[in-house]
């Protein structure tokens, strides 16, 4: 419950005071919540959830899923791997430049980087799909 709220605070680097300022939820409600003297009422939880862009369900310890992201099709997967290769090639090119300073990346970092790039591309594709697909085509995707 409060732990999830605390995680969100940390993630977005905001303070309870800021939440109070932006949403109008009294600070006392938040501190009561923290100290286990009670939980905010549903209308306040809604305001907090809206502020973080999560569902009330998630805030009270429910589902992880924030919003249903469209699934990736085969074509999207192809796009991603193509982009991935492109980026890695760019990276290799840059590596040579970086070597001059005598500080090349070690293998482990490189691997971690590749993983992070892959996941970021997938995420970006999903977001872009949701954001930039015209409304009239959105139904076809489902």
């Amino acid at each position, binding site marked *: 419950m409060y732990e999830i709220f605390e995680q969100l605070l940390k993630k977005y*680097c905001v303070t309870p005071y800021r939440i109070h300022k932006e949403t109008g939820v009294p600070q006392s409600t938040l501190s009561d919540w923290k100290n286990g003297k009670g939980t905010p009422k549903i209308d306040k939880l809604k305001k907090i959830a809206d502020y973080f862009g999560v569902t009330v369900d998630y805030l009270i310890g429910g589902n992880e899923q924030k919003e249903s992201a469209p699934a990736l099709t085969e074509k999207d997967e192809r796009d991603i791997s193509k982009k991935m290769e492109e*980026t890695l090639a760019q990276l290799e090119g*840059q590596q040579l430049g970086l070597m001059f300073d005598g500080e090349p990346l070690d293998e482990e970092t490189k691997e971690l980087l590749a993983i992070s790039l892959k996941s970021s591309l997938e*995420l970006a594709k999903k977001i872009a799909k949701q954001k930039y697909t015209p409304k009239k085509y959105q139904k076809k995707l489902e």
Partner: protein
Amino acid sequence: MHIENIVESMCIKFQTRNPFEIARYLNIEVLFEQLGNIKGYYNKAFRQKMIHLNQNLEYDDSKQTCAHELGHAVLHTESNTPFLRANTLFPIGKYEREADYFAVNLLYSDNDIAEYSKYSVPDIAVAFNLSEQLVAYRISVLQNRHK
């Protein structure tokens, strides 16, 4: 437009100097990941901008890195995969330098710097955990503004 002016207008627009919050207002995804020796990097794919930060960083460090990467996101939108290396004291190239300028302008307001103005540049550098060159740059910005 100079970097310091871009930063100031952004701070006024969003009413905050917190790089994480600004990133959120600009719809830039900030992700915490395992990144080994790298502190963080910025990339843009499929029209979505993203800042990646090493999850092992301390709060102050991740804030500094986030500000730096935000600099890339704002100033060099299209340049993909510019990396911040383990050692920020010797940034390479124009882009890294500009991103660093962006970061110091964002993280330290004029008032912060003015408060420390009676100390010497190396002292401030140690206090803020920055390179002397960056501090000297930040002070010159402050002086130019008062002219």
